Structure formats: structure tokens, C-alpha cells
């Protein structure tokens, strides 16, 4: 009787153990990605677009390909509301999840980036900062765990100078011209200044810097100053409500919108739609292509939205600037995992350390991008131990009153100039923090 009882008691335990044994291999075939997203709060529109695109791309990989070499992607969102303290909390909450811990941390916030800069190195989780964060982190010798891929702020500024140079008939024609740098009065807004000052000296144009206090919902004073200065071009380095306010104020003061060149955080539908007709003709930089014309976006519509598995509440936002940037986040993350698997074992979930290696060896040439259906969506990219930027290119687009239209192909920054600034700044950081830069010739 006792034996039977014991056997009865043991049966559920045995079943549980058997279940675990069956479940374990299934668990092991998952790659976990923690998403510190923001879907409420001041910047929810940007957060929902980028994280929505990124999630849709991961769904595509799971639905169409069955994962990366059979390893399914899993993810969990953690709401940061773009708040530093919450971002750190999310980092801690997500880092131990999944069979190999969090694969990569991409907070879409410069503040959160700074807050976890040293933690990611300790926890061996690569941090990817596409179009934000520390520019000098592009020096992978000093910042092995940070990847400001595609383009940094200095590459953007350099691209803008080149673009304006092209508009006036060549860089040498910039001599004697006047450019206003209208910026959000914050670390983000000031980020472009070193390169702009250096370029002003190099090409002989006059640079007038005009700050706008946060949040930037009043710019009458600034635009009256601009009206007095009569610049040839205005660079708009804004964020959030500052952008539509600038465009409205420009229209009010009669400044032509096609002489305003915005950065990539000033160049989304969320920046132009609120400005109404005042935004027509406005030009901005972008680090990804816009529209639904890319095969990869059509694949998402076919395999994700047609099966009602899309993440975007408003399907009309598929193909928008932020959405496509989210797809780019997805592509880079997936391709880094794939690259890591090629070295450390196909069909296995990768650790953060292995994925870091994958990011550092990403090589997306024209053929690779064509295979992904992403030609033109992002530039060709080759990351290395020393160069975590990988491309240094921007595109320019123009608002036609209802949508963004591509204006140029990829324009490469003056990479020698940008690299010089990056190395000087990273070197100063290394000295201050006592970091010994890696010797890239000895890296695997």
C-alpha cells in the first residue's frame, strides 16, 4: 500500500521531470531579446514605430524562416517611458532572461545609454545605438561593447555639410556662405557642434549657433534672429515638439523650408504632420530608406500582416520613417546573431559575448542586402574591431506635404575628418577612465 502510495506520489514528479526533459531542448532553441521600449509618455510615437518595426521583422524571421537556423526568436518588452531610472530597471530585469540571457540592449535613448554604458561591459551584453548615444563609441578599441552602427552624429553633420555643398555648387562654394545651426539645448543638440565648427573653418562658411530651450514649443525669438541673420541654410538639430514648432515658425517668418535641413531625429512623419502645410519642401537626413517599396517590407506584409500577426496598431505606419528604422534594427540584430552562429555553432542560441562578436564582424555588402530585400533600406555596412560605425552614410529626403520622398542616394561623410574627431574624443575618455584600448591586430 505504502509502495503504491509512494508510486502515486512519484508519478507527477516523474511526469514533471519528463516534461522538463522534453521542454528543455525546446527552450534551448530560443534566442531571447529584451526590448526596453516606450509606448507611453512623451516619445511614445517614436518608440511604437521603431519597436513595432523591429518586432515585425523578428516575427517575419520566425514565421517565414522558422527562426535563425532553427533558433526561434523570443522577446519581451519592458516599458521605459524614455526615463533613465526605468531604463536601468528594465536592463536589470531583462538581462538574465532566456536560455542565454539578453542578447542585446538597444534602449533608443541617449540618457539610458549613458546610464548602462559600464554595466553592459560587466554583464557582457552588446549595446547597439543606431543614430544616438555616444558618438565616440564608434571607436571599438575603447568601447568594445557599444555599436553606434550605420552613422554617428558627426557623420550626419558631415553629410549635411556635403549635401549643402552640393546644393550651392560644390564644397568650395561654401566659402562666404552662412549656415545657422538651430539646436535643442541639450547634450544631444550640442553633439554636432565640434564637426560643424571644424567644417566652418575648413570650408570658410560662417556658422551661427542658436540654441532652443527644452522642450522647444516656443521659437519666436530664435526665428526672428534667423530672419535678421538671413542665412543661406538652416540646420535643424531638433527632437520632439521642437521640430514642428520650428517649421511653423519658419513659415511664419517667411524662411523657405527647402533651405532647412533637419537631422534624422527631425525627419519623421511625426515631425512634419503636426506642422501641416508649413512642412512642405522641408529636407531632412535619414539613416534608413522610407516607404513600403522594399522587398523586405512587402515580405512583412505578406507573412506577418496577412496572418494578423503585425505589431502596428495603425497599419498605415508600415513604411514610415520610424517603422523602417525599426526594421533596420531587426535586420542588424538578426544578422549579428546569424554571423555569430556561423562561428560558434549554427542552430544554437548565442550568448551576449558571442553576439558581440557577431556585431563586430557584420559585413552587409550589396549582395547580402539584396538577399535580405533591403537594398537602399540601409547602406552597405562593414563593422570591425576598430570601427563600430561601419558605414558613415546618410540619405536625404524631402516632405511633399503628405509623405517623405527620397532626394538623394547615400552620401558618405568625410570619414577621415569624422574618424579624427572620434579617435581624439575616445582617447580622452580612455585616459580619463583608465581604459587600455584594445589592440585590434590581436582580436579573433
Amino acid at each position, binding site marked *: 500500500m505504502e509502495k503504491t502510495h509512494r508510486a502515486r506520489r512519484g508519478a507527477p514528479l516523474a511526469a514533471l521531470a519528463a516534461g522538463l526533459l522534453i521542454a528543455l531542448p525546446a527552450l534551448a532553441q530560443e534566442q531571447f531579446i529584451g526590448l526596453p521600449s516606450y*509606448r*507611453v*509618455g*512623451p*516619445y*511614445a*510615437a517614436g*518608440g*511604437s514605430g521603431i519597436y513595432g518595426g523591429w518586432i515585425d521583422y523578428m516575427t517575419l524571421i520566425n514565421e517565414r524562416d522558422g527562426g535563425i537556423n532553427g533558433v526561434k526568436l523570443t522577446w519581451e518588452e519592458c516599458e521605459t517611458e524614455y526615463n533613465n531610472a526605468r531604463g536601468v530597471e528594465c536592463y536589470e530585469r531583462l538581462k538574465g532572461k532566456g536560455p542565454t540571457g539578453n542578447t542585446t540592449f538597444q534602449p533608443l535613448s541617449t540618457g539610458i545609454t549613458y546610464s548602462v554604458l559600464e554595466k553592459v561591459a560587466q554583464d557582457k551584453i552588446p549595446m547597439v545605438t543606431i543614430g544616438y548615444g555616444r558618438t565616440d563609441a564608434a571607436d571599438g578599441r575603447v568601447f568594445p561593447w557599444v555599436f553606434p552602427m550605420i552613422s554617428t552624429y558627426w557623420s550626419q553633420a558631415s553629410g549635411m555639410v556635403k549635401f549643402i555643398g552640393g546644393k550651392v555648387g560644390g564644397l568650395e562654394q561654401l566659402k562666404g556662405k552662412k549656415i545657422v545651426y538651430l539646436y535643442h*539645448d541639450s547634450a544631444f543638440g550640442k553633439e554636432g557642434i565640434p564637426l560643424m565648427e571644424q567644417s566652418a573653418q575648413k570650408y570658410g562658411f560662417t556658422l551661427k*549657433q*542658436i*540654441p*532652443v*530651450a*527644452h*522642450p522647444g*514649443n*516656443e521659437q*519666436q*525669438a*530664435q526665428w*526672428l*534672429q534667423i*530672419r*535678421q541673420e538671413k542665412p543661406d541654410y538652416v540646420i535643424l538639430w531638433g527632437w*520632439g*515638439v521642437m521640430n*514642428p*514648432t520650428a517649421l*511653423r515658425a519658419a*513659415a*511664419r*517668418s*517667411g524662411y523657405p523650408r527647402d533651405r532647412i535641413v533637419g537631422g534624422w531625429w527631425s525627419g519623421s512623419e*511625426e515631425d512634419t*504632420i*503636426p*506642422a*501641416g502645410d*508649413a512642412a512642405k519642401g522641408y529636407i531632412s537626413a535619414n539613416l534608413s530608406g522610407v516607404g513600403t517599396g522594399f522587398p523586405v517590407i512587402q515580405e512583412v506584409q505578406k507573412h506577418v500582416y496577412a496572418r494578423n500577426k503585425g505589431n502596428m*496598431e*495603425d497599419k498605415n*505606419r508600415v513604411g514610415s520613417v520610424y517603422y523602417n528604422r525599426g526594421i533596420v534594427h531587426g535586420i542588424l540584430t538578426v544578422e549579428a546573431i546569424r554571423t555569430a552562429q556561423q562561428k560558434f555553432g549554427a542552430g544554437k542560441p548565442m550568448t551576449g559575448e558571442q553576439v558581440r562578436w557577431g556585431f563586430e564582424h557584420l559585413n552587409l555588402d550589396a549582395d547580402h542586402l539584396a538577399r535580405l530585400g533591403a537594398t537602399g533600406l540601409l547602406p552597405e555596412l562593414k563593422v570591425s574591431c576598430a570601427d563600430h560605425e561601419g558605414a558613415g552614410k546618410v540619405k536625404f529626403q524631402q516632405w511633399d506635404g503628405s509623405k517623405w520622398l527620397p532626394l538623394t542616394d547615400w552620401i558618405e561623410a568625410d570619414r577621415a575628418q569624422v574618424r579624427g574627431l572620434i579617435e581624439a574624443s575616445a582617447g580622452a575618455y580612455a585616459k580619463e577612465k583608465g581604459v587600455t584600448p584594445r589592440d585590434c591586430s590581436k582580436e579573433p
Partner: protein
Amino acid sequence: MQFFFEVLIGGLLSGVLYALVALGFVLIYKASGVFNFAQGAMVFFAALSFVGFQEVLQRWGLPAAPAFWLAFVLTLGAMVVLGILTERIVLRPLVNQPPITLFMATIGLTYLVEGIAQGIWGANVRGLDLGIADEPVEWVMESAGLLVSRFDVFAAAMAGALVLSLALFFQYTRTGRALRAVADDHQAALSIGIPLQRIWAIVWAVAGFVALVAGLIWGARNGVQFALTYTALKALPVLILGGFTSVPGAIVGGLIVGASEKLAEVYIGPMVGGGIESWFPYVLALAFLLLRPEGLFGEKHIDRV
């Protein structure tokens, strides 16, 4: 000199818009002694609800003009409901509690209102067109060479009319007098038969209406987005200058803040690196506090010893 006047006029027009937001604070403070931290969130809620209703009505095939006015009425209704619910759920249980308790409750209310607004209508940034072109007034441009925005003049006129009608309402109507009585002393007002809760509900509903007008104007200016909640920040120095209990004080305070911040940004800003517009009004207000703690038109607080 022409440039100086351009900056000054632009500043004064912006100041009227600040006064409009400050008015919402004044109304509630006058009637209940509560500093309503959620006023900025109410502006956001109102504007977002308005464009949300407008979108839904137009999707149902209603032409633009009727959709606009119906959305206005529906939003006004939503603001009245929000005001009544706030009174019932948040304020009524806290009657006779210290002012700081009521203030803290309105901080909580801020997050709730922001969350509800984004929860219902989504987080997308939207445009809002009131049909008034934001371009220079031609005859001012031609005759004086001054750049004055037509939209700003319209907005200032709207805000001015609202302030005037509210001042008259407070001064000359029975409900207005009851509001003032409640503001002076809750218990004394109750003892002579003024229904405190009804008065509070009316005040919150009127503050909701003011938030709707402010939301429409600011939303048309900069887009309907979360940043509308920041308009409250512009109202604080206005309140310090004008006094928390004075409707005319809000308008005068607004004009002073608007003009001084723009002039300071243009003429002092370049000397200190610029971007002083956000904090200069606070410095001005603090300096003013030293001279006149109750504000320009605030009621002097006298204690009998």
C-alpha cells in the same frame, strides 16, 4: 528698433497663450484652494480627445465642418465628465485635508489623465487645423514692416475674450459669487447654503473648457502630442507673477512673462550662450516674489494675532 518691436509684439501674443493655460489653474485654485498639477494633462487630454473624435466622425462620413463642431461638443462633454469624476473620486474624499494632500492627489491625477488619453486615442502625433493661416498679417507688414502672425493674433483674441467673459462671470453672476465665497472659506460658504460639491464640479468643468480652448490653440500651433502637457510649465511663472487667485492677474502675468522671455532670449541670451527662454521667467518670478509675495493681483494674506 523695428526688430525690438517685432520681438515685443511676438512675446506679448505668446504671453496671452500662457495666460490661457494659467487661467485653468486660477479657476480651480480660486474655488477649492487646490493647485491642480494636472492642468497640463487636461490640456493634452482635451486636444487629443478632440482630434480623436474628429477622426472617428470623419471616418463615419461626416463632412469636415459638422465633424469639427460635433467633436468640440463631445470633447466638452468628456471634459465635464472628467471634471465631475475628479471631484467625486479624487477631491470629495479629501475634503478638509491639508492643501498638500490635495496637491499630491492632483500629481497622481496627472499620470492617470495622461495614461487614459494615450490609452484611448493612441500615442500617434496628430496635426490640427483650425483654418487660420499661420502667416504674417499683411497690412502690418506693409505699413510698419513688422512681422506679426495672423494665427497668434486670432489666438490672443480668443484667449482675451475668454478671460474677459470669465472675469465678468466671477464678478457679476450668482454662481460666480458663490464660487468666490467657496474660495474665501469652505465652511462659511457651506453654512449659508452654498452647495460645495456642485460648485467644485462646475469649476472643474469650466477648467475643462478652458483646457479645451488652450489645447486647440496650442495643438494647432505645435501639433497634438504629449508635449502639450509642458504648456503647464509656461503657466507657473505667470501664476507667481499674477497671483493664484486673480483672473486679470493671469493675463497681465502672461503678458509680462511672454514679452520678457522673448526679449531676454534675443538680447541677453547671446551673452550667456542662449537657450534662456525656459528659465528666465522663473528667475523673474522669484525676484518678483521677494518684492510682492502674493503676486501682482493676489489677495494679501493677513493673520490676526
